[in-house]
């Protein structure tokens, strides 16, 4: 059965169902227990599963991740929450040098079925330390998997996949999407990691976009559709491993690719997508792969500035039109 649920509820339901299914799943993080998490993502779980399985922790991000790593290596399936994505920097060693590498460094002997959840993205006037999109940092680290759902359906399925996954995963919840509603099946299901979603088919250009930007891209495609431009929109959903195949196929078909993300352009994941596309679709491309992203500055506080900072429908549309200006082969 399918109902309309909010993104935040879809997250919550995935956690609840997986906890129901598997007594080894537990949650730990700041204010997630009695309070249910500052974004409401853990609402009601402590009441249902008890203080042993939904644990309020001290403000100690390094120890929170370490708790997860140690418990995972010991056979549990921890879900540990880092409130804002910006705070992964505080626990970066534990994520990058411990969680991600232990399996390899131990010659495969360890398994780290750890899910790290965190709230990313801008648009809330939360300024430089509470608005970042740092997915590129995580995707560069062998051993991690990274997901960033753009809608309630993917949220539930990806979160379930993360919890069942035997490798450390980072689930990035977009703070601006928490209230977004959509159809979500009641029964547990999984969106397999590493599979992109073709949000909309098209023939003139491909847009690759994730998180909230996938929705902006879909809106841009809709807008351009009215002008007779057919845009294919691909939401990778999983950022590491990236579904290169789906993106490449689309590039072969449309010959024009635009990548969109909220993170700053320089060194963002869009660079990797562009590098891959020009490699795998060199002979097909009629225009350079374009990138729409934030400029090279910290996220500004003032809404007047943040508005210009974040990519939006107009900038995406303009980039697609730009790519289409070049004559075809």
């Amino acid at each position, binding site marked *: 059965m399918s109902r309309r649920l909010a993104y935040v509820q879809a997250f919550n339901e995935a956690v609840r169902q997986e906890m129901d299914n598997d007594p080894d799943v537990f949650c730990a993080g*700041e204010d997630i227990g*009695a309070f249910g998490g*500052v974004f409401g993502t853990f609402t009601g779980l402590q009441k249902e599963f008890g203080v042993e399985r939904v644990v309020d922790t*001290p403000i100690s991000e390094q120890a929170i991740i370490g708790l997860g790593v140690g418990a995972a290596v010991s056979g549990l399936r921890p879900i540990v929450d880092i409130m804002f994505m910006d705070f992964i920097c505080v626990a970066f060693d534990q994520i990058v040098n411990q969680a991600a590498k232990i399996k390899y460094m131990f010659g495969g002997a360890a398994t780290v079925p750890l899910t790290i959840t965190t709230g990313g993205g801008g648009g809330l006037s939360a300024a430089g330390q509470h608005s970042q999109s740092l997915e590129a940092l995580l995707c560069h680290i062998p051993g991690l998997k990274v997901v960033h759902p753009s809608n309630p359906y993917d949220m539930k399925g990806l979160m379930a996949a993360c919890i069942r996954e035997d490798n450390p995963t980072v689930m990035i919840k977009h703070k601006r999407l928490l209230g977004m509603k959509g159809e979500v099946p009641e029964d547990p299901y999984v969106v397999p990691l590493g599979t992109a979603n073709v949000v909309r088919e098209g023939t003139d250009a491909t847009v690759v976009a994730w998180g909230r930007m996938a929705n902006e891209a879909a809106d841009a495609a809709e807008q351009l559709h009215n002008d007779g431009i057919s845009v294919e929109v691909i939401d990778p959903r999983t950022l590491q491993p990236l579904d290169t195949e789906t993106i490449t196929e689309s590039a072969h078909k449309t010959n024009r690719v635009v990548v969109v993300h909220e993170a700053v*352009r320089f060194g963002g994941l869009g660079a990797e997508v562009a590098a891959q596309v020009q490699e795998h679709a060199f002979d097909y491309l009629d225009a350079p792969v374009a990138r729409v992203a934030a400029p090279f*500055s910290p996220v*500004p*506080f*003032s809404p007047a500035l943040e508005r210009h900072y974040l990519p939006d429908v107009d900038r995406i549309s303009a980039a697609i039109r730009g790519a289409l200006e070049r004559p075809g082969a």
Partner: protein
Amino acid sequence: MTQFDRDVQLDLHRRMVRIRLFEEAAGQLDEAAKLPGFLHLYVGQEAVASGVCAALTDDDQITSNHRGHGHLVAKGGQFNQMMAELMGKSTGYCKGKGGSMHISSLDVGMLGANGIVGAGSTIAVGAGFANKYRNNGHVSATFFGDGASNIGALHEAANMAAALQLPTLFICENNEYGEFTPRDQTMAITDIVDRAAGYGIPGVIVDGMDVVAVHEAAVEAVDRARRGDGPSLIEAKTYRFYNHHGVQNLGLKYRTDDEVEQWKQRDPIFTYEDRLIAADTATRDDVDAVWEELRADIAAAIEFAESSPAPEADQLLVDVYTSTDTAGVAR
């Protein structure tokens, strides 16, 4: 409190009232949806920032946390630039780029609120290092909460200051909660000051609702630091009257109405006013005049902020780097 001059006693009062009025105004603007972003208000804790900052000069530095307006006001921050910053205006202290969580004014030695719990402490250690390096007799102080005392950076900062014998004060505002979680769920100790011995520095507990007690302890710690005897820890037992962010408790039952009420009985400003009047240091009229005068300032500041322009789009990439010549810098 007799050991302090009347001027000092009245100054302590004035600092607290300035904070209270600023925070109440901010709270009202927030409830009216006139402030973008998050807002962590300082109401209830005024005695701590006031008592400490009154022991410092403009050349002494402080670092703060997410709950930073009170610290900046106490250090001498101006209402106009503060209010403008909260509204994200170009006339704000940070030209609208920092907002509540990054409010700062180097002119009065306020090296920033901070959105990362505990992170300000290491920066205060750096300022303390600079003071010692230059042998200029200045001190730095860092404000942090009970919750922050559990984060690694705080530990490293305290030990570094102790190891290098830096003129740096660690001011813990123990308000018994980190966001919505009570202290006793996040640590097995009651008093943060129990950690001082582990760094080999002196630590004292003060009543954080008593501005004179805080000031006394701060003066002693500042003297010690200026003498070259190194850092110390002051734990002020205090309470925030508002919610973790914003004003209302939103019906969240992480603390009881009763508990809040009991602390409110000990309001740091009202109890202090009673003492001032009882000791004939001030009359009720004197005291009321302070509120009145400052209320006018606040009204003017709101007016200033509201009529100030938002930053223009061309300001977006200014001040990422020090050189305004961003040629060659990635876009």
